[in-house]
């Protein structure tokens, strides 16, 4: 009877199975195979994402083409709007003189009689409008002279104060003077107002407002 007959192959296999090098190699092999699982998952995920994003890109491109087509139909309106916007500095710098005169008339009390009103535009600044130049005034100077009844008190100062409230923000009174006389005193007021586009105090509405004429 042959006790425990073990072939060389079996021995060799046992050596491989239980030796450290074999185990290490097996560990590396299984580790590598295990690593393939997330890689495969990642691959599937990226493929799905790629597909979704390409579909979305196609949709956006189609939408952009439709918008471009719509925009072409509005090209004329857009051109007009650009031109209006180009003229905006001119419109903003124009302080309506009639509104200033109307406000002076409205605010002057019955104790005042105006003898002279002078309004001058000043501090001109050239502005490029399309292919041409236009000088825009940055300020207007208002000088009012007149007579005040002797018993009227400070009616001319009241006029200056009220007018200042109506003029655009940043306006200031440059001069107020009163010369004694009988039966009337002669006053002189000088005000400066910036042409900053805020003329609502004068009762002016925006030019784009309908029925503003």
């Amino acid at each position, binding site marked *: 009877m042959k006790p425990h007959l073990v072939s060389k192959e079996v021995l060799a296999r046992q050596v491989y199975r239980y030796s450290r090098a074999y185990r290490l190699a097996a560990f590396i092999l299984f580790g590598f195979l295990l690593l393939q699982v997330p*890689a495969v998952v990642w691959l599937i995920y990226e493929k799905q994402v790629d597909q979704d994003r390409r579909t979305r*890109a196609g949709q956006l491109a189609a939408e952009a083409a439709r*918008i471009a087509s719509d925009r072409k139909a509005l090209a004329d309106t857009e051109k007009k709007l650009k031109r209006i916007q180009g003229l905006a500095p001119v419109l903003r710098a124009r302080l309506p003189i009639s509104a200033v*005169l109307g406000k002076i008339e409205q605010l002057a009390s019955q104790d005042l009689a105006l003898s*002279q009103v*002078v309004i001058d535009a000043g501090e001109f600044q050239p502005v490029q409008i399309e292919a041409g130049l236009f000088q825009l005034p940055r300020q207007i100077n208002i000088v009012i002279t007149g007579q005040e009844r002797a018993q009227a008190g400070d009616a001319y100062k009241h006029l200056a104060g009220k007018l200042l409230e109506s003029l655009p923000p940043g306006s200031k009174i440059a001069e107020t003077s009163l010369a004694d006389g009988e039966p009337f005193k002669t006053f002189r007021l000088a005000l400066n107002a910036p042409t900053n586009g805020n003329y609502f105090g004068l009762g002016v509405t925006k030019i784009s407002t309908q029925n503003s004429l």
Partner: protein
Amino acid sequence: MLWLYHWHRANEALYLSNIRQASQNWLDQRKITDLKAAAVQINGLYLRLGDPIVATQNLEQVPSLDHGGARQNGPEPVVIHDFMKAGFAAVPGARRRHESSVVFELASNQLEFHRVVPLLAQEENSNAFLFIDHIELLRPKTTEPFSEHPTALQSRLRVRMFTAAAQ
């Protein structure tokens, strides 16, 4: 793995590109919606602004005071014509160098304050590019202060209008 990483980067770039394109589309769509909504107003305003712009070829045909303010060869700007109809005399003023404008000096001794102001308002409303660079309203020395009689003022104006030289 490197190939997967590059693919991932390409997908991220595509994602960002999509976001940019979507934002741009949204802005363009909004612009178009706004334009459509405001089209009537824009066309109306354009017409209103474009109408009074003075064509430069007519500038040399303006009447002068030497000829009694009569029209000689062609149409003057509508605003000036209106001023003249209201009783102002008009002469072309010195034009600033390189400026797209026409300048007129206007004078009248016939109009009262309550007629001058509405006239100015009417002309300023009709021409958004009418600039009154100088205005002087003077009560005649012969009229006493607080006079209750209608007083024709000595009115002097220098007006300037933006022209369509650039059109």
